[in-house]
């Protein structure tokens, strides 16, 4: 191949932890990186968490230095509110078309003072906060989001529905709001692509016996993370719907495991983390964990399990779980292994659902021209050769987009993909 | 040199100007010694603002720059670059945060102004004691030493080797391949391991940039990132010791099995036909699965989690390979009865549960059990256990296969000493950060991959080896000099009394002891500026550049006056 045809730049899709790590490493090696991110913020799912296992490190504190490095790195072209439209070419010379939605806020002028939020007349449920609090049509998903620049949600902004409203623009002292911004089509020439689009969680509504969406105070993992988060909807106070603190909590593992057909590998560990969350804020709380097999591989994980066990948690191996309302509380019906149905009454239930691919995975796979496996994740060509290599040379799949895994494994994969790219030339 | 401090206060639009009486701040600092100019500006971080600062520096001959504005997290770098552009050393700059720490936290304008004055004066007091710091550039050697010739070592070597980067692959046994040369197949696809290995080992053979040393061990490792000196001793007769230099070291020394003899109730080495998983793999690879008396077993018990409680962690691979064993047995001895005794079935990963679900059928039993004890029963073995419901049970089998925990290889403690990295949980090498730094260590230039870092399966091992390659390829570039951290520790020879306290508390192994002068010396290339030595030094000999006693003392003194 003619050397002149090799594009040295790299496209990274997804600015979560894996995408950020890959971008920073590539930049360090002197490569220019185009980091395409779907949302208006960086950090991905990790910034939803207050703490991470197994040493309960503050998650945002862990991620923030990386985000900062990212935002100040001159080699990294961060393209937000974007998605991949189209890819042509092959390994070494891909031509990528990116559709970038307008933010309507100028990244250079905006200093993040948040003065534009108050006057906005539109209020709706904040998706980042799992619907537990509200946001405006011009918003940042949470306090501390980086870049600290809001976006206008054109689906709900009344100006974009034809009404005359300039409330946010008037409140801005820095000329940062520009309604004339247009969506863009960007063309990138890259030599390699790293797909780091992350994951979603299984919707427990699909297993009606868990009562999710029907019974009050049944939360999924992300909702509970936001309840505990100090920058969350309750500023970290764990409260149930009546505004009180729960006295007893049931944590249900393996939600959706049977339906999906695989073990998501992180849920037992984060359920233990939830234990820690609860006991640190509500010292007298009674916790019961309902699990099938305790899956905690890894040299540091069992230590954490032993520590949590000592806090007096009830660990109950159970199946046939059925959740029902009982007065103000919730009854968890279960089969404890001795054949008999048993039950426990709690104030709050937390469901640990399976990790599933993002909704747009199969669409993105078609665009990229790579295969998807039976579970909907991007398919590695041969994991005994390298689990980050997709079915198309030059396209690497990392993190949870390739399969459920924890942060350490995602970061390892991102680093491995960079290794493969750097050794390609 | 005549010091000329320039103080610039950013209005940050209305953010600061409406909350802080900037004119009062200007008045408070103008009369200070050696403050040559004090100005306010609408938005210093804007393009115009940056131009303004450069012009001002040149116009007034400013030697030290103080900016009172937003958080250093926002624009520390911006202003340092401006200094550089204007010919001022970027470390002769101090940023006072009068926005996040002042204007944004109170509505009381008087309070905010008073605090802003304090913060600005404190920055001025501090900057008087700043010293210009220069970035260093160190030559580095891009070559790599890989210790361990198993799949991780092989993979890393293949990724790293190139005409401008030699790889020295050192293996203590007489051949490459490591643990998996003993396995017939690997889960979940049941691919022959020889297939996986053969291609890679051929590639290593053919690669002129990989020098393989079998029957060899590292005898000495000195130096630091970019500049390691290695001595290998090899059992080969002609060569005594081999010396070479490298820039990075990869520890891919793998793991061994926990010795079940330590738990007598498993009957290992007490009774015939109780074997470990590794022994079974070897037996299976040879093609014939037999008992001691030469006959095929008609019934086999496989015990999971051997040694798990003692070691205190789950080794991740054993449940999966124990299921693989069921397949091995059924493939070769179709009528054999197999029972697996496990505590928690650990099958994480997208295709692993399916592997388990497809390994079911006639004469295959998965039994959740605890309190396992193996005793002899005539020619056979009796597996006593307590089942899920708590009742005592037992099963008689011809052969018992024990699936023990994975332990780090026996060389770990020696290598840990050579490299200055610790052995963490389970005795495995300690990674730099559990989440964000799995393959780097506290010693810059030393990397870990595979089971030497923690128990894991083959695909994850390969990934870590590739990750190490990624780290090295991006930080040790042939021809490119290393730019070490500037704000490092410095130990004064006249104060140092040679008590060696700093050596004990340095987490990065960058302090050495000069026996002639009886003083400690900091290696500025690998010092990360953490400050442990500065805090611990009993005689105040250690100080941190850009965070000296006087700098901090003066700043605090002024701030709390």
């Amino acid at each position, binding site marked *: 191949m003619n050397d002149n045809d090799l594009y040295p730049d790299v496209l990274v899709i997804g600015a979560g932890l894996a995408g950020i790590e890959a971008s920073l490493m590539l930049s360090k090696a002197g490569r220019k990186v185009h980091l395409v991110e779907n949302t208006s913020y960086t950090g991905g799912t990790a910034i939803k968490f207050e703490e991470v296992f197994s040493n309960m490190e503050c998650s945002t504190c862990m991620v923030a230095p990386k985000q900062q490095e990212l935002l100040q790195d001159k080699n990294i072209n961060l393209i937000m509110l974007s998605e991949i439209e189209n890819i042509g070419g092959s390994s070494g010379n891909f031509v990528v078309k990116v559709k970038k939605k307008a933010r309507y806020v100028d990244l250079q002028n905006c200093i993040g003072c948040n003065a534009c939020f108050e006057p906005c007349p539109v209020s709706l449920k904040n998706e980042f906060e799992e619907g537990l609090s509200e946001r405006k049509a011009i918003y940042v998903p949470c306090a501390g989001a980086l870049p600290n620049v809001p976006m206008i949600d054109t689906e709900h902004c009344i100006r974009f529905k034809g009404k005359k409203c300039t409330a946010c623009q008037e409140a801005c002292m820095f000329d940062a709001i520009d309604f004339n911004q247009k969506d863009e089509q960007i063309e990138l020439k890259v030599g390699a692509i790293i797909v780091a689009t992350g994951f979603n969680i299984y919707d427990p509504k699909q297993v009606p016996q868990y009562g999710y969406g029907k019974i009050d105070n049944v939360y999924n993992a992300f909702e509970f993370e936001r309840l505990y988060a100090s920058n969350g909807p309750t500023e*970290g106070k764990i409260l149930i719907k009546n505004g009180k603190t729960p006295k007893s909590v049931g944590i249900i593992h393996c939600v959706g495991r049977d339906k999906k057909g695989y073990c998501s590998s992180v849920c037992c560990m984060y359920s233990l983390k939830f234990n820690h969350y609860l006991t640190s804020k509500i010292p007298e709380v009674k916790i019961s964990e309902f699990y099938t097999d305790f899956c905690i591989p890894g040299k540091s994980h069992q230590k954490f399990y032993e520590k949590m066990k000592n806090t007096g948690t009830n660990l109950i191996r159970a199946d046939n779980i059925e959740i029902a309302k009982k007065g103000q509380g919730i009854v968890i019906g279960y089969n404890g292994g001795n054949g008999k149905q048993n039950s426990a009454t709690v104030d709050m239930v937390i469901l640990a659902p399976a990790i599933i691919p993002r909704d747009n995975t199969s669409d993105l796979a078609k665009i990229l021209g790579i295969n998807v496996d039976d579970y909907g994740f991007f398919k590695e060509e041969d994991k005994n050769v390298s689990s980050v290599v997709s079915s198309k040379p030059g396209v690497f799949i990392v993190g949870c987009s390739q399969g459920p895994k924890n942060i350490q494994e995602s970061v390892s994969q991102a680093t491995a993909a960079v290794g493969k790219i750097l050794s390609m030339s | 040199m005549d010091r000329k401090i320039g103080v610039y206060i950013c209005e940050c639009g209305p953010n600061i100007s409406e909350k802080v009486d900037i004119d009062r701040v200007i008045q408070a600092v103008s009369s200070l010694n050696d403050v040559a100019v004090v100005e306010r500006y609408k938005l210093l971080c804007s393009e115009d603002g940056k131009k303004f600062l450069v012009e001002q520096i040149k116009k007034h001959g400013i030697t030290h720059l103080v900016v009172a504005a937003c958080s250093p997290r926002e624009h520390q770098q911006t202003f340092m670059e401006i200094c550089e552009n204007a010919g001022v050393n970027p470390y002769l700059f101090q940023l006072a945060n009068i926005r996040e720490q002042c204007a944004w936290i109170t509505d009381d304008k008087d309070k905010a102004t008073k605090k802003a004055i304090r913060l600005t004066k404190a920055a001025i007091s501090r900057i008087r004691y700043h010293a210009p710091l220069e970035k260093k550039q160190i030559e580095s050697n891009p070559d790599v030493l890989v210790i361990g010739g198993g799949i991780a070592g092989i993979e890393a070597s293949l990724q790293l080797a190139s005409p401008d980067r030699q790889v020295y692959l050192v293996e203590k046994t007489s051949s490459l391949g490591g643990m998996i040369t003993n396995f017939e197949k690997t889960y979940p696809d049941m691919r022959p391991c020889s297939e996986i290995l053969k291609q890679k080992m051929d590639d290593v053979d053919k690669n002129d940039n990989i020098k393989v040393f079998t029957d060899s061990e590292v005898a000495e490792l000195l130096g630091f990132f970019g500049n390691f000196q290695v001595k290998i001793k090899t059992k080969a007769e002609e060569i005594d010791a081999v010396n070479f230099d490298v820039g990075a070291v990869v520890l891919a020394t793998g793991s061994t099995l926990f010795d079940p003899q330590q738990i007598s109730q498993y009957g290992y080495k007490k009774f015939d036909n109780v074997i470990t998983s590794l022994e079974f793999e070897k037996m299976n690879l040879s093609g014939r699965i037999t008992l001691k008396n030469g006959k095929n077993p008609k019934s086999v018990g496989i015990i999971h989690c051997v040694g798990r409680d003692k070691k205190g962690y789950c080794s991740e691979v054993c449940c999966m390979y124990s299921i693989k064993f069921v397949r091995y047995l059924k493939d070769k001895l179709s009528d054999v009865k197999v029972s697996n005794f496990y505590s928690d079935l650990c099958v994480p990963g997208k295709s692993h549960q399916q592997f388990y679900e497809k390994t079911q059928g006639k004469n295959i039993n998965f039994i959740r059990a605890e309190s396992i004890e193996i005793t002899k029963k005539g020619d056979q073995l009796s597996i006593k256990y307590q089942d899920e419901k708590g009742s005592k049970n037992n099963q008689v089998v011809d052969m018992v296969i024990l699936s023990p925990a994975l332990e780090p290889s026996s060389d770990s403690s020696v290598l840990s000493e050579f490299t200055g990295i610790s052995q963490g949980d389970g005795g495995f090498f300690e990674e730099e950060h559990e989440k964000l730094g799995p393959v780097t260590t506290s010693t810059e230039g030393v990397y870990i991959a595979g089971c030497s870092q923690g128990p894991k399966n083959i695909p994850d091992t390969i990934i870590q080896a590739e990750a190490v390659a990624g780290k090295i390829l991006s930080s040790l570039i042939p021809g490119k000099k290393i730019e070490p951290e500037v704000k490092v520790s410095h130990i004064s020879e006249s104060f140092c009394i040679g008590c060696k*306290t700093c050596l004990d*508390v340095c987490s990065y192994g960058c302090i050495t002891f000069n026996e002639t002068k009886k003083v400690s010396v900091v290696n500025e290339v690998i010092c990360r500026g953490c400050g442990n030595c500065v805090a611990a030094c*009993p005689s105040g000999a250690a100080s941190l550049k850009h965070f000296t006693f006087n700098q901090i003392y003066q700043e605090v003194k002024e701030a709390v006056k």
Partner: protein
Amino acid sequence: MNSYSEKPDNKGAVISAKTSIPDSIKDLLKKAMENDVFDAVLIPMRVPAGDSFVYVLIQDKSLIKDASPFSPIMSVQGAKAVSSITRLGKGNLKIAAIMRPCEIRATVELTKLDQTNLENITLISMDCPGVMPISDFTKEPEKAMKLYDNAIKNLDDKIMRPVCQICDKSSMVSGDLHIGTLGAKKDTFFIISNSQKGKDILDKLGITPKEKIDSWQTKVKTISEEKQKKRKKAHKDLKAQIGGLDNLLDTFSQCINCHNCMRVCPICYCRLCYFDSDNVKHPSEDYLEIAKNKGSIRFSPDTTLFQMGRMMHMSLSCVSCGSCEDVCPMSIPVAQIFSMVADETQGLFDYIAGRDTDEPLPLRTYKEDELHEMEDAHD
């Protein structure tokens, strides 16, 4: 490296004193030198002028008879003497150092700090009755000697220094051998070995430790408990006296920055003390600024800073030997204060300075499970 971590044997040897106990000890040392067990002995001796005692390193065994193992004052801290012999490495002479428990403990601390090499040194401690304040002795040496001899005989410590009166470690064994006078039958004393080195020496001297030492242990325990009671009360009173910033400043207001306390302190081994260096010398503008802000500034300044700084530097190794208070020209109760604080700082880590050479310095070790009281509280 010698290990002093073995507990004292439960058996000792009983030596009869033919003339007096000090003479008996000296005889033993002489015999040891004659048999080449030691090449030299480091022991206190009265100066020719008669008004002081110093440590001497004796190689001529005929001079041992003039030494005074139980000297009434501690002019030079024994640890400083031992440390200067081996600061730059172990010597070839086998030396026996006869010192008080606090001097031995200070030596052990200095060993951990690489200032002393104990390979060829045998540390011999004794039950310490305490010492007098130096100034009390030098005023009238003859009278003081008599007072001291009486005090030892009657186990009366009223004339001893304040820190000695509340010292609960006056019989602590952390060296190689210990001379136990308490609880011994009249005109006898115990010799107890505390290490392999100690055992070997007794072997070479033909002394077999086969007697029970219960009576010593009991007496030592009783005295230590009494002293602890006194210590607790004294510390309580002292805390009330110097507690709070104003009281602290008042207490140290007499300090003249002479740095005597630092110079005699065995733990202050720095070549150039931080507080003697340029780092604490400020440009005149700074002094003028302070004078302007506060109205006036005293000289020399930074005295309390020096005291607190020195305390911070050495508290974890402080052995409460009291040398500092002995030499303070302004009679500040430095030793009492520093000793009280040392009890607490060392107590945080369950550490006793000099107890055991193998016990690492607290600042140098990290334990995951410690100092929880310092952690941030979760809200």
